């Protein structure tokens, strides 16, 4: 396959649709592997995206993912419509979770996602408006 740079990708996420949570991360993983990007780096990128995707499915109503890849970095923006996060500092703390029983029964809801996104990215910014939605912007540099 041939890819032009910068490469742009877009995916949609539906809230509550757990069986498709991860479809974007899985698709991106296949693309990054074809581009021969280092597998440990690919793992960090797709883990961060997957955590964000699962958060939209678990906590919001719908979301849009925009990805831009160039030779030096990958930029991932996840914008959702949802309840928003009232206290972002608190949400970033390991162990803080408001996940429902349904989410927990599926193996999630330990309050580890946002800290894990932080761990796997070079930069992470979280903006949120209560009653509107949340926007995550993450960058991972490719030359580590």
């Amino acid at each position, binding site marked *: 396959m041939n890819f032009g740079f910068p490469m742009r990708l877009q995916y949609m996420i539906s809230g509550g649709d757990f069986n498709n*949570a*991860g479809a974007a991360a*899985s698709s991106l993983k296949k693309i990054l592997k074809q581009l021969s990007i280092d597998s440990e780096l690919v793992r960090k990128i*797709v*883990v961060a995206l*997957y955590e964000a995707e699962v958060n939209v499915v678990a906590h919001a109503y719908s979301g849009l993912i925009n990805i831009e890849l160039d030779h030096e970095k990958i930029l991932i923006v996840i914008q959702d419509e949802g309840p928003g996060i009232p206290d972002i500092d608190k949400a970033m703390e390991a162990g803080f979770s408001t996940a429902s029983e349904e989410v927990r029964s599926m*193996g*999630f809801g330990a309050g580890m*996602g946002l800290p*894990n996104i932080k761990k796997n990215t070079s930069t992470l910014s979280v903006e949120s408006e209560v009653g509107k939605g949340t926007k995550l912007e993450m960058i991972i540099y490719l030359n580590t």
Partner: protein
Amino acid sequence: MTISQLVELLGLEVVCGQERIDEEVEFAFASDLMSDVLTLDKSGVLLITGLANPQAVRTSEIADVTAIIIARGKTITQEMSDLAEEGNMILLTSKLSVFKIAGELYSAGIKAIY
């Protein structure tokens, strides 16, 4: 140890990934918590879990888990095996408990990550 050796040792059933069973695994992790699996610093591990759902398969694919053993004879749904096929995963099942599987593999020399 190769996947095929551990299939033999524990009498596992290979649901998906028959073509990859000559691959080696050195480390294993046991958890029903996918949030936890996503924080592993290692790729290529074996996951032992009691969680039989599509999320366990998807999470393993994303976290670069080499093979999954679903414990206690739980039913593997079509959705799970489809996801495993699509992600080129090795999906195994066992009648044994997570504790028993982990104990046997530890004795056989499979290492813990933490």
